[in-house]
């Protein structure tokens, strides 16, 4: 197994993890134009919840479903009482959700303590596939499949469903859509909850890879923002491509140019912003 090929493979797999992480933010920011900086907070809430459930002998998959539902419910509450007041007001959204990061992070530390928490890979996926003198963990392949499933879900939702069309229309011309008799507010609430749920799912599925620890929420947020900026707002396609690019660059760069791999990614981001501010696949027409 040539090492470059293996690096490429692991880079793509890791890119899928990034896409999964960024998907929730893609929905909320890209579709609804809401700056939810508390995206990483949804991620860790779900991860911690799943950890507690699994520590109490609950099945991993059941814990996943419960954590996602609880976090989505939290998303609904957050949207109804906080976000709703600030549609269109970017700065307020930023400040509000930024403050939420601290609240959630400190509350999590109060409840679960400061030590790193380990969420075990579910037993059914806890094996590796031998490839020459190294092996590839099956769980990472599973994440690749999850990423593909999310991509398909998003594509279908956006282009094929009436709801997708309503959302896209509602973001651009809310009054018109309301005039057609559609409860735009309710639609937005559901989308926000959906984004929170996606973030939650990626939190539970991502936790076995990274562990759950202080600072994970901001790491997740920074990663997601990078993916979004390079890929372009409003386009999950862009998020997918850019996540894969970032994953491969980081993995291959980490092996060949270890001290500058992060530099390359930020340089790429700046380049995109200068040459093509909408990102690779950003929305140019509505």
């Amino acid at each position, binding site marked *: 197994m040539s090492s470059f090929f293996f690096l490429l493979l692991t880079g793509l797999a890791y890119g899928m993890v990034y896409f999964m992480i960024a998907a929730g933010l893609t929905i909320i920011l890209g579709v609804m134009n809401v700056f939810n900086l508390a995206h990483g907070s949804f991620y860790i809430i779900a991860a911690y919840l799943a950890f507690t459930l699994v520590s109490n002998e609950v099945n991993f998959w059941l814990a996943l479903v419960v954590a996602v539902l609880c976090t989505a419910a939290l998303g609904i509450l957050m949207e109804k009482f906080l976000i709703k007041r600030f549609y269109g007001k970017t700065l307020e959204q930023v400040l509000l959700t930024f403050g939420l990061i601290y609240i959630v992070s400190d509350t999590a530390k109060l409840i679960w303590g400061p030590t790193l928490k380990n969420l075990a890979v579910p037993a059914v996926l806890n094996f590796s596939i031998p490839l020459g003198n190294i*092996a590839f963990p099956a769980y990472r392949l599973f994440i690749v499949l999850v990423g593909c499933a999310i991509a398909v879900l998003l594509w279908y939702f956006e282009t094929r469903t009436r709801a997708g069309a309503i959302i896209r229309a509602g973001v651009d011309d809310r009054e018109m859509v309301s005039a057609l008799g559609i409860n735009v507010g309710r639609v937005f609430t559901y989308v926000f909850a959906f984004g929170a749920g996606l973030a939650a799912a990626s939190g539970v599925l991502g936790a076995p890879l990274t562990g759950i620890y202080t*600072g994970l929420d901001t790491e997740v947020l920074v990663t997601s923002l990078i993916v979004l900026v390079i890929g372009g707002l409003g386009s999950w396609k862009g998020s997918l491509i850019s996540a894969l690019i970032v994953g491969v660059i980081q993995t291959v760069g980490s092996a060949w140019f270890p001290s500058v791999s992060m530099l390359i990614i930020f340089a790429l981001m700046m380049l995109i912003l200068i040459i093509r*501010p909408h990102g690779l696949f950003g929305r140019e027409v509505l």
Partner: protein
Amino acid sequence: MKHRVYSRATSVFALLAALILVLAACGGGGSGGNGGGDGGSSPTSNPSSSSGSSGGTSGADGSTESSAQPVGTVKIGVLMPYTGTFAPLTDSLVKGFDLYLEETGGLLGGRKAEVQYLDDEANPQTALRQYRQLVQGSKVDILVGTISSSVQYALRDEVEKDKILLINPNASASDLSWEKKSDYVYRVSYSGWQQGASPAQYLAENVGKTAITLASDYPAGYEVIEAFKAAYEAAGGRVIEQLWPELNTNDFSPQLTQIANAKPDIVFSFLAGSDQFRFTQQYSEFGLKQSIPLTGNNNYADYMFTSTVGEPSAGIIAATQYIPWLDHEVNRKFVENYRNKYGTLPDMFSEQGYVAAMAIDEAIRKADSTKAEDLIPVMKGLVLNAPRGTIVIDPDTHNPVQDFYITENVLQNGSIVTKVIDKMERYAMPAQRPSSN
């Protein structure tokens, strides 16, 4: 309509980019891994649990910078990172410290201990602010701190000026014993040099003659690997490659690929915090555990690590000064008391906190004083019956001379127990920095 979207998109992206840079600056680990993600630096005071009454009659005790104290009390300032990536270490360390105080009925050196705990956030600026509060505000006699070496350097310079005794329960930078040694700073844990050099001879003679080292790309990592390489090559081994993953690396597959292709006899590793945890898991997941023995510094034998990681840490060979299974009378009692009070086994940080309190207790008792000038001569050469064994604070390096144990992690009834397989007795740092080749 189209025009509006364009200009909005641009400003949106500009805002995003600015945000990312700010967050990356706040959230990314700096040298020493300080500030794990909590960007703000407002000073937080931990709910202090000072044992003992506040304010007594002020005695006329001379007018040095350490202010007048009644003979019956000693004021201790504990300055540690309660927030950030080092929070778990602080948690254990302070538990050990408090356990010692409980065992002595709140007394240190026969005086009633009034302890104030403040958070330095592993940030030198915050630490200096809290330091001034402890020294000028609360007028503490003795300071205990800290975890991060970058903060330790800042504190070291201040205690030199203010002539306050500082007990270092963790910060491992070797030059705190060499170029940055101070009469006012004494370490009760171990140095980066000891961490790197201690396993080297055993590994070269018994496990493998070629090694790849893998360490976090920051000063502590360089120190440990430098010491390891010198000792390993002196014992007949050869380091064929050095890998330096960034702090907060999530994915070690590039390094694991390189290791798998190079096929060394062993891998020697020193990684910070959650990196160590993830690397160990991935070492097992990527199938290297079967073919190439993983070895490391004392963190790889530590209970905090093995109890979290579990099975992937089985088989790791390390050298450490403390594990809860050491068969000493002092340790058995320590482990039992710790387990009764906290419901868990102590890890090496717990033991370090315990010994920090012990050191203060012994020093005050021997000097019969809480003043730095009287304590300093006593600290040099101080002998302590620590849970890890008998240790001596080396007068040349202000660092413990102690036994290091070569250990192996063993899976037993579903959990990891660390077993001793060899011993390096009275292992001391050299008095001067060894000349590098």
